């Protein structure tokens, strides 16, 4: 079973690697050669490089924005207004239930407005950050929520406050270090989602990496697949780093909460 699952996951990657490393056919032996020229060619497409940079910038801004909104809101909800937890959860999960096309139709007039009135800034793909923050909310919410449930957030906050900590210090010095795993998971999920987001960028005519890959696929499929593979590897490396380094703090909190007297 495990082998079947691994094959299901890995075979497409092997196929991508095989396809993206095809070189010219040897005129003598007629055999296909191997070459990294598709990877080297990535930098010969300025649009592609711009798309990669734009997507990475959007991803970074999205993660920062999402964490800045979500972490204080969720901690505040747990500590001060626990009855609102379900409402916050509902709002955060809502984007899952709304098709991308509906979001685009709803939000297009706003993008038209900022495109007309904010000059170059309004036309920048970085404005996708606003919509991407909404799109990553369901996944990020789940990741942070599970970490918050692993610690006694309210008591830790009370303890920090009684020792003299302001609310910002309580959140960033006491709560966040103990939900580090959840925060990092939320960040990785956010990055992965932004780097994979195509529909909205395409419909709003912004050249993010996915849109450029799609357009490039029509001209040079080898480079297109090479970039896709690199994007996947980048996501895998991020996930590995998170799983390797992140859970320590959360596990400590969990064990402390479960420790018998």
């Amino acid at each position, binding site marked *: 079973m495990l082998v079947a699952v691994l094959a299901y996951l890995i075979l497409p990657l092997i196929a991508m690697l095989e396809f993206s490393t095809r070189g010219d056919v040897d005129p003598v032996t007629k055999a296909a050669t191997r070459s990294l020229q598709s990877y080297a060619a990535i930098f010969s497409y300025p649009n592609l490089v711009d798309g990669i940079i734009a997507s990475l910038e959007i991803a970074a801004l999205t993660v920062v924005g999402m964490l800045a909104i979500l972490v204080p809101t969720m901690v505040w909800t747990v500590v001060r207004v626990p009855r609102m937890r379900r409402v916050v959860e509902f709002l955060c999960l809502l984007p899952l239930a709304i098709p991308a096309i509906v979001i685009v139709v709803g939000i297009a007039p706003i993008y038209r407005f900022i495109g007309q009135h904010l000059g170059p800034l309004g036309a920048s793909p970085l404005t996708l950050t606003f919509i991407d923050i909404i799109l990553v909310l369901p996944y990020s919410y789940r990741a942070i929520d599970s970490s918050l449930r692993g610690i006694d957030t309210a008591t*830790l906050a009370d303890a*920090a406050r*009684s*020792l*003299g900590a302001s609310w910002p210090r309580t959140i960033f010095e006491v709560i966040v*270090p*103990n939900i*580090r795993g959840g925060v990092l998971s939320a960040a990785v999920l956010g990055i992965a989602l932004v780097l994979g987001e195509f529909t909205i960028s395409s419909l709003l005519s912004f050249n993010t990496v996915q849109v450029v890959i799609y357009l490039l696929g029509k001209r040079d499929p080898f480079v297109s697949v090479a970039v896709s593979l690199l994007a996947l590897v980048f996501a895998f490396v991020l996930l590995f780093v998170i799983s390797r380094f992140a859970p320590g703090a959360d596990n400590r909190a969990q064990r402390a909460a479960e*420790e018998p007297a």
Partner: protein
Amino acid sequence: MTSTSPTPAAAGHGVAVVFEEMHRWYGPVHALDGLSIDIAPGELIALLGPSGCGKTTALRALGGLDVVDQGRILVDGKDMTTVPANKRNMGIVFQAYSLFPNMTARDNVAYGLRLRGVDADARKKKADDMLDLVGLGKQTTRYPHQMSGGQQQRVALARALAIEPKVLLLDEPLSALDAKVRRQLREEIRRIQIMVGITTLFVTHDQEEALAMGDRVGVMSQGRLEQIAAPAELYDKPKTRFVAEFVGLTNRIDGTVEAGRINLLGTSLPLLPGSATSGHATALVRPESIRLAAQTGSGARVAAISFLGSMCRVQAAMPSGEILIAQMAASDFVSLQPGTEVSVSFLPAPVFAIAD
């Protein structure tokens, strides 16, 4: 509400605390219903009561973790009612383990000092001193998950005391611990509290803990203070029916009240103030006020005997089927066995009687 005057328990740097007619509503629930308490500098007040009686609400209000809808909280003469928790300088030990999991014992204790801008060397020294005080001088680099529950609560106590708080608040800090650790730690807390001389509010639902630790014990019910008094006075002279029934074991024995005394099974006993004044009444009699002696033909029989170390607790079945519980020194029960016929008599201590 009844109260005796506060007396300082220790010669330290404690401050006076006053709860003045505090009210707190949670929707329709009146969690604090005109609660007023005067706490003397250095005194340890134990607030005792069943779950939901408002004792934790009172503690959290004093710590600034909850608000009061009416009334005032004065600490050292200053009105603290609306001062935020992080500006009150109160040390709190919580029921749940509250150490910061990402910090060592030393860092936990030093955290409050860091917030106060104490430099690193002084912080470390103070934290180590406080951990020494609670007997954990060799555990400074341990993380909470590497410590037992009792050790964690000791560190929490050290952390609360490190900031030299005006008042120490203990919110059922022993309730998650096993019986032996509880006893050890409560004695330790009391020793440290007397040594430091800090004014302390201790909230518990465990009467033994409250009576053992408190200079005075306040019994709360439905947001109100029923009585606050020294432990012995509270036990021997309950002023309300709730206190008489809630604190300690009581036997309910029917009798007749006349001229300030009640007649119980042929014995006339004086009544405590607040008791029924005439007619049929139910007396609340402590087990240690009842004496049993082997006597054939008396009608009452020993139903069961529980050995409690130096004491024995005997259940006697009366001819009416009622069960009385008596408690005496183990040596006094040598002649009794289950089934032995016994006579019942009472010590001449005053009892509380409720009108039927």
